[in-house]
């Protein structure tokens, strides 16, 4: 079971700033360990929803850094809204986590 993501969503005015941290090795298929090549293992797609509506979607490659970090902004959000993020990797594993949008300072 993949480790949980850490998602932070803070709203300033009506724009939510969403930052997502994902625990994933993002193996390029080029790294060697103990003389053996570690097979390609990376997140391929990401979907983020605000209260169930898809707002952000990405298809990515193994060139994204290990333990990926993404940030995006959504207009029309307010404190208490739900942000759900799902990733899926090339081995078919996936992980979904959710957070509540917090009011900004």
């Amino acid at each position: 079971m993949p480790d949980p993501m850490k998602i932070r969503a803070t709203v300033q005015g009506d724009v939510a700033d969403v930052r997502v941290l994902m625990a994933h090795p993002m193996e390029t298929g080029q790294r060697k360990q103990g003389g053996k090549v570690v097979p390609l293992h990376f997140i391929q797609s990401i979907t983020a929803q605000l209260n169930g509506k898809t707002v952000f979607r990405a298809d990515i490659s193994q060139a994204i850094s290990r333990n990926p970090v993404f940030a995006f902004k959504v207009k029309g959000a307010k404190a208490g809204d739900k942000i759900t993020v799902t990733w899926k990797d090339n081995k078919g594993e996936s992980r979904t986590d959710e957070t509540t949008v917090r009011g900004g300072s």
Partner: protein
Amino acid sequence: MRRALMLSLAAAIAAAAPWSPAKAQTEDPVAADFDKFRAIMEQANPAELFEVKGEQLWKTPRGPKKTSLEKCDLGLGPGVVKGAYAQMPRYFADVDRVMDAEARIVHCMITLQGFKYEDLAKRPFSSATKTPDPVSITTYVAAQSAGMKLAPSQSHPKEKEAYETGKAIFFYRAGAYDFSCASCHGVDNQRIRTQPLPNFTKPEQAIRAVQGWPGYRMTGGVMHTLQWRLNDCFRQQRFPEPDYASETLSALLTYLTANAQGQEYKGLGIKR
């Protein structure tokens, strides 16, 4: 005769010194750029993933004794995590010695949970495939001191003694390369390759020994604590290897942290 000639020639060369050492400026634009982007990255630091894991490990009954670490005394009373990291290393009466945060956590894992030191010390540092539990737990504990002033206690005689011992370790030149910690960290405005080398003997720079640790290291994408940092310094000093969570390292950390007394600890960092 020839040697004498050569030596005097060398002296002449040194005296004439037609070159000027290229000193690293504090406003080195490259270093400033690194700092700027590191600050951006710290706003969403993968280190937080290990903090989450560490919190889980702290609160879950584990080990042969199936207990959590919630009775672990980090110096502020059993179970008090907030602010504890900023006040370590400190003296602990139950072991009659000074301990740094990770040494204390390891001590709690041994005494409260029944883990064995030998097992914890076998592979104490993170690799591409594994982050040892004490690393995640230390990360969690440290994060609960973010924004606080460093205040390692220096009131107990053993704490003062640890400071002086740590200082002597810091300045001790030995090993294949004749290095001490001070070879790299005892002078102002030096850098190794492009990395600035703070002078840890000065209060305003000593903070940089502690700041940013535990830190997420971009190289390899792994989480490391000060235990790793000191271990790697001794490796590069070409010394033998210091034992994990040993009193030597607690003493050295006492010296470094007490030199930074009163400065703000900003929490988890990102390192090259």
